[in-house]
């Protein structure tokens, strides 16, 4: 992690206004809390702003602070605390590439090479403004490693070829449905089930008492029947 600051002045827009639908959604959040506790809505509203703009600019933070009656620094504290808030502009598609151990073992490094090749260095936005890629820690989809989160959704079981294809289709303006990209049901084994396939599991014939080889010898019960 590195120090998180507001984007440099040159990148900051002159102003920020809530779009009608974000304003309406913000109002919904505001009604959840008592007037004096409006500040409680700060995270959902910052998220709405990020949905609308893709990132949190200085004027946007000021607008949220004003909406919630908070000092600006309080909003900045939150925006800098949570790394999911982008403090700099990102492309239309934000790729969060998981680089943690399971994904790394399953080929995340190769995906990085594709990203570097097709988009550019980590954190940079592609020339067409479509893509930004960053490396993140575990997103909790290790069974479908390697994976990338593109905007809100998980794209799983990727290979360099599949990722290349996804990026090309997204760049062409297509919609690519999220999910896993090999033939399997969610995180079930590819093709067919490989475990729990013994029929006897399901007709009850596998059931029955078992004896552990290193269990302690059974002693005769105490006359009181108690153990203390």
């Amino acid at each position: 992690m590195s120090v998180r600051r507001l984007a440099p002045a040159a990148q900051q827009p002159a102003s920020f206004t809530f779009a009608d639908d974000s304003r309406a959604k913000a109002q919904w959040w505001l009604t959840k809390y008592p007037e004096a506790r409006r500040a409680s809505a700060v995270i959902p509203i910052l998220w709405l702003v990020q949905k609308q703009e893709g990132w949190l600019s200085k004027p946007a933070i000021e607008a949220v602070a004003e909406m919630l009656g908070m000092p600006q620094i309080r909003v900045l504290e939150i925006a800098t605390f949570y790394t999911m808030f982008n403090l700099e502009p990102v492309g239309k598609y934000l790729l969060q590439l998981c680089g943690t151990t399971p994904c790394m073992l399953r080929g995340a490094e190769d995906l990085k090479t594709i990203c570097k090749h097709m988009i550019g260095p980590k954190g940079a936005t592609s020339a067409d403004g479509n893509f930004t890629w960053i490396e993140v820690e575990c997103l909790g989809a290790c069974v479908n490693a390697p994976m990338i989160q593109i905007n809100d959704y998980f794209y799983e079981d990727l290979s360099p070829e599949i990722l290349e294809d996804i990026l090309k289709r997204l760049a062409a303006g297509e919609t690519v449905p999220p999910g896993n990209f090999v033939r399997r049901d969610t995180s079930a084994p590819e093709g067919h089930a490989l475990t729990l396939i013994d029929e006897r599991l399901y007709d009850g014939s596998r059931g029955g008492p078992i004896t552990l080889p290193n269990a302690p010898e059974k002693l005769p019960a105490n006359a009181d029947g108690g153990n203390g």
Partner: protein
Amino acid sequence: MVRLIVDSVEIDVPGEMNLLQACEIAGAEIPRFCYHERLSVAGNCRMCLVEVKGAPKPVASCAQQVRDQRPGPNGEPPVILTTSALVRKARAGVMEFLLANHPLDCPICDQGGECDLQDQAMAFGRARTRFDETKRAVEEKHFGPLIKTEMTRCIQCTRCVRFATEVAGVPELGATGRGEDMEITTWLDQVVTSELSGNLIDLCPVGALTSRPYAFNARPWELRKTESVDVMDGLGSAIRVDARGQAVLRILPRINEAVNEEWISDKARFIWDGLARQRLDRPMLRENGRLRPAEWAEALALAAQRLSAPAGSVAAIAGDLANVEGMKALLDLLNSLGIQNRDCRSAGERPGAGPREGYLFNSRLAGVEAMDALLLIGTDPRREAAVLNARIRKAWLSGQLARIAQVGVATDLTYPVEDLGTGPDILEALAAGTHPFFGVLDKARRPGLILGAAATARPDGARILRLAGTIAARAGLVLHANVEDGPWNGFNVLHANAARVGGLDLGFLPGAGGRDRESIVTGAQQGSVETVLLLHCDEIDGKDLGTAFVIYVGSHGDAGASRADLILPAAAFTEQNGLFVNTEGRIQEARRAVFPKGEAREDWAIFRALSAQMGKVLPYDSQGQLRKQLALDHKAFAGAMGDPAFNPEALGELGPVDAIPFAPAPNFWLTNPVARASRTMVECAAGARRSVSQAAE
């Protein structure tokens, strides 16, 4: 009360105390960084860990209340251990983590010698480091001309954030980022805009926030410490003056719960460089339009000659920084000469004549915390008495002081204020009982009003005083002992300067048929007042004194000295022992920390010498004798109690008031000659102007 056993000492403490306080009562020392008695509990430094018998791991004693402790299985009191092996190990571990990222720059750090981290590392830390990795470095921050930042040293205790948000009421500081990247900063690196910002320096347990003007000046063990009181406003905050040789190098607060708790305003803290600049260090007299140095004998002879003119043509005005002894000696001299033209209300304020309650802050400063409704009249406590303003805010935060209203120019006072209007005409409606806020005061159990003394410095001032008194009388602000709920006196006059109440207690007011401040000025313009003596008085524009011969007795070359025809150099408040009476009538002594500059003399000694020159020798040869005389002549200095039948409705004079708005408070930074001579204060004033003009853009 809950019984606890702390290190085998059995104590009974109130349940709402935290363990840290309980341990201190039991005599155990608990190290801490983030915990501070006057701030909310953050519990993030973990230095105050103690062992609670039965708890699975050490607990942060600042964040656990006594009443939450579980008794033993047979009802024994909970047992707290503060010196066990577990506690020692926990402290050493916490200290190791705190030091992991703390630079080893103690030799060049201004906090060195008075650093909590240094002291506690010595007392509770490990002897050697096991840390091999690189330390973090934090980008510089800019907190303005008063606070020097070195944020690499910060240990993220967040005391400064909590002070700014809670006490100062300027939520401008925050902690951005997290983990190792957590930084204390302001929004867009803006300057902290509080009149109390200097207290951040005291609160900071390490050298992250230090005093910029004092930077690299001295080590604490080189300084000679003198306990004194502040004279920059009317509160008389308790201060400690630190000097090395003959130079005052810094001013720090002392704790006085009844006055300033442990805060002082930036003006009190940072004017010390003004004590060494623009000083009058030898007598001077004007010849052919230019001042030239003179000997004391020559100067005193000239002064004596001028003062022995017919009494009606001589006048004296005592100003904002005059101590009681100086005014007493001058008053006695004037009396022996029959001079009736005299006034200590150098800004032209009206409160003064009549009982002491008519010009005091009667509820006392701490009484603000008992109030449940407050009316501010023509006063801006944030600028006129910054520490009092923090107390008003504290009362508001506690929920006790629910309604605060203001008549005067609205400014940000750091708490919500109902704006009733800008001019004194609103007071007529309040006094008549027709204004809704009158009902609020009337219903309140402990109502109060604060009348800015400076707000009465206008032609209808005496009538404003009467209206304020009328409101106080009719809304039940003054309850005598025989009343249910009494006694209570919520009629408060806030003086913005240190000298005034002392002068009023002396009766440094026009004698029979004498001129007051306004009349002295008009008399000087018309030529009927030929000699004006100004004692530490720079509140009068020199041009207003016409062609009168001006004798200036004071410490700084400012408005008074530049107009003066004769200058008798006097000691500043850090150079002489002198009494000051604060706005609530508390008599306190400002003590000598260094010797007067050059040939300057103590105020009272100048008038004693002058009296000898004139053959009217004053009946005291030492300050001790003078103080004895003071107690004999003035009952306020003999411990007299107040007037039991004080009636605020009799103050001032009856008559209509103008609708002209009250004047806004003068520039906080530059209200007196010492502050105006201070480079730091001038820089602050310039910075404040800049930020105002930026805000306007």
